[in-house]
Every structure is written in structure tokens, then in C-alpha cells.
């Protein structure tokens, strides 16, 4: 790893100031992606701005809105009694990220800001119509995830929290690569008051919604209805782990499992 300057600001304002003034500074949250990337010298930032000292790790619920602080670690989201009560699908998703040691360090804000095409959280945010709160604004998930490792975040913008609607009828299912354990296809299904939303991760260049399946599940919220929707493999990822046709098939199967899990939660 190349050397860098390390800053651990005590306030959001100080963190934003550092990011604004230092050229090529990066935010460090849990470091589960950034540090391996730096070790491989795929990234060599001049400075790291560590968010560890900021009070951003809380989880709270009020008036049907669940707010998860950006530096809440996956293990804390998974074990949150609040989420178990009002948003169990997100807790279960967090409990399936990586392995226990990764869940002890990795954060929701880091995962969301990184927008890895196989990350789990983006599917939850997009399906639930969550909002990404930053030090400047709130961005709805539909506008936030732009493309491969790309988000609507401006340079130096810091994710401070994620706001979810409290929905019990919502769940995630993924098929993991047997080696890397990343999702070859992951599907989050959410039955919102305005209608069902379905988001897919791991299968394409970035997380995306499935309007055809949403319509089918609006008519019949059953695993059978989910599996009956034909998924077009065009545009899906093909690699040595799974070709596009196989991923398309997995999307249907995972959607069925997610619906079953959502029904079990509700």
C-alpha cells in the first residue's frame, strides 16, 4: 500500500472541509472494499478521511421511517431489534453480507457509496425506494445508483444515513458464487403501499428494477407468480461464473424465494 495522510475528523463539517481541500482524498468507512483496493494499488489516494469518530452509526425508527446511520456496521444492522420489528428483510440481508468478520467492519454507507455491481444493499435501497442522505441533500435510490461503481454523489459528498420505509413485507434472496460468495444474482422484493417493487443486483452492470415482475406481483404476490415471469437475458452479465441465460434464470428463482421470505415476515 502506498503511504497516505490519515485524518480522523470529529465533525461532518471538518470531514467535508478536508475532502474539499485535499486533492484526491478518499472517505474511509469500514474499509472492506477500499483497503483491498489500495493493497492491490488499484487506488492510491493521497489522504484518507476516516469517518469512524463521527456519530453516524445509529439506527432509529419514527413515523414509519427507518433511519440507518452511514457508519452502522452490517453486524449491527443484522442484530438490530428495531429492524427485526419493522424492516426484517434489511436485517436479514445485512446478516448475509460477506462473512462475520466483514460484517463486523463493513458499513451500509460504504457499501451504498461504492455501488459494487454485486453488492447486496443497493437492491434493498432500490426496491424499498429508500433515500440516501448526504451532508448536502437527500437522493432517492432511483436517482442514486447510476452505473457500474457509479453513483449520483458529487466529489467530496459524504453519505450520512439511509432512510427506508418501515415495511415488513419485504425480503431479499441471493445465489452466491461458491468461491467469492458474491451474489451471482440477488433479488429484493418489497410490497409497498403504492405497489410492489423488485430490484436485482449481481446480474447486471448495476442494480436495476424489473417492471414486468413488479406488475405480475401486484396482481399476485406469490412465489409462483414471480417464477412465471420470463427474464430477458439481454444486457445481463456473462462471465466464467455464470452466463447471461443462467443469471436470468437465477433472477426468477431468487425472486420467488424473496417473495416467500417476504410473506413469512409479514
Amino acid at each position, binding site marked *: 500500500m502506498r*503511504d497516505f*495522510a*490519515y485524518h480522523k475528523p470529529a465533525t461532518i463539517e471538518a470531514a467535508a472541509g478536508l475532502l474539499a481541500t485535499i486533492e484526491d482524498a478518499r472517505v474511509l468507512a469500514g*474499509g472492506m472494499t477500499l483497503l483491498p483496493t489500495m*493493497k492491490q494499488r488499484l487506488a492510491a489516494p493521497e489522504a484518507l478521511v476516516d469517518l469512524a469518530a463521527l456519530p453516524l452509526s445509529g439506527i432509529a425508527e419514527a413515523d414509519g421511517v427507518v433511519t440507518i446511520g452511514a457508519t452502522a456496521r452490517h453486524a449491527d444492522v443484522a442484530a438490530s431489534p428495531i429492524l427485526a420489528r419493522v424492516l426484517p428483510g434489511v436485517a436479514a440481508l445485512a446478516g448475509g453480507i*460477506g462473512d*462475520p468478520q*466483514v460484517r*463486523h467492519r463493513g458499513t451500509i454507507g460504504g457499501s451504498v457509496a461504492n455501488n459494487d455491481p454485486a453488492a447486496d444493499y443497493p437492491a434493498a435501497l432500490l426496491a424499498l425506494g429508500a433515500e440516501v442522505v448526504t451532508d448536502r441533500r437527500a437522493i432517492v435510490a432511483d436517482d442514486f445508483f447510476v452505473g457500474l461503481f457509479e453513483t449520483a454523489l458529487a466529489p467530496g459528498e459524504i453519505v450520512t444515513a439511509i432512510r427506508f420505509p418501515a415495511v415488513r413485507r419485504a425480503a431479499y434472496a441471493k445465489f452466491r458464487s461458491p468461491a467469492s460468495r458474491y451474489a451471482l444474482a440477488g433479488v429484493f422484493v418489497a410490497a409497498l403501499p403504492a405497489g410492489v417493487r423488485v430490484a436485482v443486483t449481481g446480474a447486471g452492470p448495476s442494480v436495476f428494477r424489473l417492471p414486468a415482475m413488479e406488475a405480475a406481483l401486484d396482481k399476485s404476490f406469490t412465489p409462483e407468480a414471480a417464477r412465471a415471469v420470463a427474464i430477458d437475458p439481454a444486457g445481463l452479465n456473462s462471465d466464467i461464473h455464470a452466463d447471461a441465460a443462467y443469471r436470468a434464470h437465477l433472477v426468477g428463482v431468487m425472486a420467488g424465494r424473496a417473495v416467500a421470505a417476504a410473506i413469512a415476515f409479514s
Partner: protein
Amino acid sequence: MDISFTLNGRETAVDVPPATLLVELLRERLGLTGTHVGCDTSQCGACVVHVDGRSVKSCTMLAVSADGCAVTTVEGLSPDGRTLHPMQQAFRDCHGLQCGFCTPGMMMSATDFAASHPAPTEAEVRHWLEGNICRCTGYQNIVKSVIAGAAAMHQGTEA
């Protein structure tokens, strides 16, 4: 950068470059070579240590992030440096190792798990050990060791 932390119960102060990984500090500066580097890519778990009681991969954490924390390595498991910790004894009794390279990480991961799981099932142990890779044993005796070690850790206490 000057940092200070509690290492295996002892106050420790060091000056480290920010790019130092926790595992590098432990092994190369402080001589605690029980923590191993297997893959160096956050996958194998040979480098697992406890930071504030939680198991983490020390190859994927900056040493400066441990500032102010309590760090426990495999060298700190034994209460007096001579008697084996119940989990260490269980690995010995159940033949939970062959070459031994993964064993420190396995035990650090297992003691974290067992602290809150006094009577785990085989499935729970296998699920927890997802981040610890062993290339010798086929895991059979490791799982047996963790179940036995968890029971031994909680012996005499009500579950």
C-alpha cells in the same frame, strides 16, 4: 502517527505510518507472529484478531484504526500464557488442526462466536466459519472443536 491501544491486556503505544495494516504492526513491529497472513485479500481468516471483543480480519484494517481499542491476538487467549484456553484445548483434544496455519484465526473467530453461542449447532458453526478457510482438514474436526470449545467456555455457567 502515534497510537495507543490495549494489546492482550497491556497498554501499548507505537508510532506507525498510516499505511500500516494492523496485521503488519502485530507481526512485524510487535513480534506477535501467531496472527498469520494467508491470503492477504480478506478471504481466508488466518489473520483474525479481536478488536473491542469483535473478530475482524487484521489484514484489512489499518493499525491507526485500532487507536484507543482493545486488541486481543491468539497470544492473548491463554489466561496466563501457559494454561490453554478452553477453545485451544478443544482444538487439541478434537484434532482440529493439521498443518496449523489457519488455527489461530479459526480460534479467534470461534471464541468470538462461542462467547454468545454456548451450545451451537453444527450448521451455526459452519455458517459462522464462512470467513475462515482451512486447506487441510475438511473442517470436520474444526467444527467438532468449536462445539466442544463453546461448551467448555461456558462450563459452570448457566446458558
